[in-house]
């Protein structure tokens, strides 16, 4: 989005709050970076894969915070304001990860290894829909999905620490009863792995086509809701 020419806004009763002198945060940033590296090195002594998780986790958190990537907003904003800029960002991310994961899985398939991550191909049933709606209601009330909540706790937003407490309670409860739900509700549902159905090429093409359609739909939706004129 292009920013309109910045004409300073004339504030009449200007109550501009006194700005605290900004302290440089650079020393803290360097300390934290050193801490991250130190912890990473310590973890390597125990297990390299844990150290790897640590590094990926830190990078993921950094990217998430800086990009304001928010799965909640991607689904909520179209309904509230009609803005779909984050929706489109999420769709692009899905497209990229689809290609990446297909590459990893196909590579393993061709070289005859076990395909990694197949245990995450979950059964699809009505339970998926119900669970999705429940999760959606929860994340809009809490102001963030799982990753968003964690990121904002890092930023120091107190309300979301409360959300985290209940997020943990809910997860524990869910984990406790998951066995029963699996046995009685989900068990009969089919596990669908697209490449089994359409072939590898077909699966990725179909998936990207669907994402592409959603992207176009999101763009049209925004234009309609906000009445965007093309160029100003």
């Amino acid at each position, binding site marked *: 989005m292009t920013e309109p020419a910045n004409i300073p806004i004339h504030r009449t009763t200007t*109550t501009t709050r006194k700005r605290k002198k900004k302290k440089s945060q650079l020393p803290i940033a360097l300390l934290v970076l050193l801490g991250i590296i130190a912890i990473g090195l310590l973890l390597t002594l125990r297990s390299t894969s844990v150290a790897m998780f640590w590094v990926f986790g830190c990078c993921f958190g950094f990217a998430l915070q800086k990009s*304001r990537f928010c799965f909640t907003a991607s689904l909520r*904003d179209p309904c509230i304001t009609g*803005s779909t800029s984050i929706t489109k960002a999420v769709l692009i991310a899905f497209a990229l990860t689809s290609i990446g994961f297909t590459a990893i899985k196909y590579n393993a398939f061709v070289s005859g290894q076990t395909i990694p991550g197949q245990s995450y191909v979950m059964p699809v049933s009505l339970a998926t829909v119900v669970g999705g709606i429940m999760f959606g209601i929860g994340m809009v009330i*809490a102001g963030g999905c799982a990753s968003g909540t964690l990121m904002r706790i890092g*930023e120091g937003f107190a309300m979301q620490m409360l959300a985290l407490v209940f997020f943990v309670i809910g997860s524990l409860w869910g984990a406790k009863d998951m066995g029963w739900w699996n046995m009685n509700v989900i068990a009969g549902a089919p596990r669908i792995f697209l490449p089994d159905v359409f072939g590898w090429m077909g699966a990725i093409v179909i998936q990207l086509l669907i994402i592409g359609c959603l992207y176009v739909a999101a763009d049209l939706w925004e234009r309609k809701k906000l009445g965007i004129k093309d160029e100003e």
Partner: protein
Amino acid sequence: MAEYELDCLGEACPVPLMKAEKKMATLNKGDVLVVHIDHSCAMKNVPEWARSQGFNVEVEEVDDGEWDVIIEK
């Protein structure tokens, strides 16, 4: 040319935006609304929404993690 303030400190994501949306509807042209926020997400979506409506927007970081969004109708 009145100036209004909207205190959204401590409010999570969609709330500041919805409050600002409602408040802006009651303002006259030329009025200014100052929204105080401390949710980083709102720092992004409030200005984005206001700009899409054709309002003039400025964001000021008044403290670490605390912003004033100044919107002129």
